């Protein structure tokens, strides 16, 4: 069994943060060693990076949400088995093998985190933002969500709204199905999708003009 670090954990604080030049050199070294062993290649690395920089992102989840808003039968299927429902729209992939969509309602607001690391529903939201992976969000959301959302996300939820925090501790990946805003009856599915933000699908924002939080 791999034992935890045995040296003095409180020594050596002055060496952090590690200079970027050192990190860069180490990563080039890793790539070159692994490529020599045939375990990675530049074209494969480039392909992965391009996918997650350009193709896989919250626009995908927004389409799912918009479809659920306009199609009640799809919404039912999404809430029953989000992985299967997303697959109908050809949405699938790593970190999305077991997805669950959690619906907001008048009395319930959902918000997602991973207090232990950074688990996140990649196929519908892409890679998580830094704040989601950093210690502050992970520490505070499970304990004081209402205060955190108000102070750091300008999202005020009254005490009579139940806040459900989904701490992704296993392989199930959660995203929020926000409520469709009032007054959007005339919008097309594409226009509706444009209203759905990454932050709303994580649960740190709502969808209404003047809600204030950035994407």
């Amino acid at each position: 069994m791999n034992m935890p670090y045995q040296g003095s954990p409180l020594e050596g604080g002055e060496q952090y943060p590690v200079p970027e030049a050192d990190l860069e050199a180490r990563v080039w070294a890793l790539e070159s060693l692994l490529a020599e062993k045939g375990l990675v290649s530049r074209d494969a690395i480039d392909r992965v990076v391009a996918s997650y920089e350009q193709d896989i992102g919250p626009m995908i989840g927004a389409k799912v949400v918009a479809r659920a808003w306009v199609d009640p039968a799809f919404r039912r299927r999404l809430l029953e088995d989000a992985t299967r429902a997303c697959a109908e729209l050809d949405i699938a992939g790593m970190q999305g093998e077991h997805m669950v969509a959690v619906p907001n309602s008048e009395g319930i607001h959902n918000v997602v985190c991973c207090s232990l690391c950074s688990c996140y529903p990649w196929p519908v939201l892409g890679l998580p933002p830094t704040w989601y992976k950093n210690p502050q969000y992970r520490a505070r959301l499970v304990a004081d969500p209402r205060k955190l959302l108000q102070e750091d996300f300008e999202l005020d939820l009254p005490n009579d709204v139940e806040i459900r925090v989904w701490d992704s501790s296993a392989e199930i990946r959660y995203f929020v199905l926000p409520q469709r805003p009032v007054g959007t009856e005339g919008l097309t599915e594409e226009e509706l999708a444009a209203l759905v933000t990454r932050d709303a699908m994580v649960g740190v924002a709502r969808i209404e003009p003047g809600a204030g939080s950035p994407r």
Partner: protein
Amino acid sequence: MEPGELRSVDRRIADVLPRRSGELIFEAEWEKRGFGLGIALVEQGLVPFDDLRWRVVSAISLWERANVGQEETFRFAERWLIALEKLLVDRGIVSREEIEQKIAERRARDG
């Protein structure tokens, strides 16, 4: 179109309307007309304001996502007009063909 009439306009839209010393500024005549047209349609009950509001928000959002890093090229009036045009077409008030036709006629006339 008096600035005071903007009190009924959604705060978020109002925030992005270009102003100088609190007064609305329009860079071109078409901007003023486009804005006035939308407000007039709402006030005459032909289109619900919420529908127009959400379409503008949606159009802005789409533009922002496609133009990260180029925020200084944002023109609210363009987004407004695009949203308004789509609303009119979606509601059957005008058709896409009618719009194209009118544009062609206008171009021919103006040389």
